[in-house]
């Protein structure tokens, strides 16, 4: 297969970027999109030019580092797939593919297709954890969890923090990421102790860095882990509860 790639090149955070056109020849339909970028980079290195910078790590869809807009869609045209697992058989032979980094004020471009996603870490720090005693692990069935709850928590816990939801959202909102990280803990018994404090802190930290949801639903279609916007509704519900419950605790001097 042959492709023409139009790739965003930007030398640094402050530099002015531009699209560069590259030809990718002799591409197998079983290659992943990142492997095509590898092929292009090989050619660039041989020609003495600077290769295209892009984030990648596991290449099996679980680390969340690879992420780019491919033909105007986060992680490309295939649903529920990260860029590393997007195979070239999904594209027409000879097609022109436009590749661009995520765009958001809180995802500044580091170089080319690499963005700084550390704003997500600020949201996690605000409450995306549970406090547990250290030591040997507790008996597996000490805390009973209903099957449906465990399944829902697992669906939320699939989030790999790639940032596709923010990138795809017309408002640049991080609601899907935050709600997934929030609800996979809020659903489980281990997450109950800090539930309301967590909800308040994570939502308010999210709003310091990202836009806000107007229910376009675009994030859900971009998510490589198919996380549902149901979690956003759940977060909205928990946030209002958290606000009034935390108030009660404050009134009792138990803040």
């Amino acid at each position, binding site marked *: 297969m042959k492709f023409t790639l139009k790739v965003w090149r930007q030398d640094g955070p402050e530099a002015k970027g531009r699209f560069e056109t590259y030809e990718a020849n002799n591409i197998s339909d079983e290659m992943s999109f990142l492997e095509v970028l590898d092929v292009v980079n090989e050619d660039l290195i041989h020609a003495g030019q600077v290769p295209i910078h892009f984030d990648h790590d596991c290449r099996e869809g679980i680390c969340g580092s690879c992420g780019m807009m491919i033909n105007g869609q986060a992680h490309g045209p295939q649903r529920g797939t990260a860029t590393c697992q997007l195979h070239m058989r999904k594209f027409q032979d000879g097609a022109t593919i436009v590749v661009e980094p995520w765009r958001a004020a809180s995802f500044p471009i580091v170089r080319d297709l690499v963005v700084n996603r550390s704003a997500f870490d600020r949201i996690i720090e605000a409450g995306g954890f549970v406090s547990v005693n250290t030591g040997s692990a507790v008996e597996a069935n000490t805390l009973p969890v209903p099957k449906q709850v465990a399944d829902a928590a697992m669906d939320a816990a699939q989030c790999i923090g790639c940032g596709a939801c923010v990138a795809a959202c017309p408002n*640049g909102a991080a609601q899907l990421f935050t709600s997934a990280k929030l609800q996979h803990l809020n659903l489980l018994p281990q997450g109950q102790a800090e539930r309301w404090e967590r909800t308040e802190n994570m939502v308010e930290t999210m709003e310091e*860095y990202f836009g806000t949801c107007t229910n376009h639903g675009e994030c859900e279609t971009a998510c490589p882990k198919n996380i549902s916007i149901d979690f*956003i509704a759940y977060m909205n519900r928990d946030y209002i509860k958290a606000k009034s419950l935390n108030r009660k605790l404050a009134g009792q001097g138990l803040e």
Partner: protein
Amino acid sequence: MAQATPRSTVEAAVRPIRKRPKPLPWPLSLYQTYVGKKWVMAITGVIGLLFVAGHMFGNIKMYMGEQEFLHYAEGLRTVAYPIVPEKFLLWVARLGLLGALVLHLHAAFSIWNHNRKVRPVGYQSRRDYIAADWASRTMLWTGPIILLFIAFHLADLTWGVEAVNPDFQSGEVYQNVVASFSRWPVATIYIVANVALGIHIYHGAWSLFQSLGVNNPQINQGRRIFAALFALAIVAGNVSFPLAVLLGIVE
């Protein structure tokens, strides 16, 4: 919590776009966050939906003749009279609607103002939207159209502003409607505005469930259907009135 001093250059490169406000007492504190503002939008939206549905339903009386329609208009002014003074509940409803409208507008403006700072450099290639439909992305256009229409509609049939409706006679609601809608440019304004209202409702009546956290696998399918049917009913009802006058069914 964001750290006061960044621990690394990576962290230092990302600064918040919004300062966390000083918390006001509950329940005002809810309105300080955008998640809370969306709640207010949804609740005021529900008030708007109830009003629009009642308004459309009541106006169907137009088809039952002038006498019936005048009686309906009179009934609105005397709800719960003589237990409460005449027009009392009418004014309660009016002030409530005005309050809801003001809050809805303020929340919308505030959310728009925040979201426009979020992506200072937009996508340089063409975006390909999958889920975001035409209705959801035109809320900021259909909204102002509806707002302008509300002003026009009040001037036309409530206040009877000379420049808008020269044949207006206070209390003669049936004749006022006929006089107004007989003019085709006015009828066109009503039809266009109600289509915009329908598009606004198509997104809003679904979106409010998400904002309020009303989400349950048993009802999720029904939410879209509800929004579509609600929008369709409002548009069909409201557009039928000017058409009926233009076609001579109501005269």
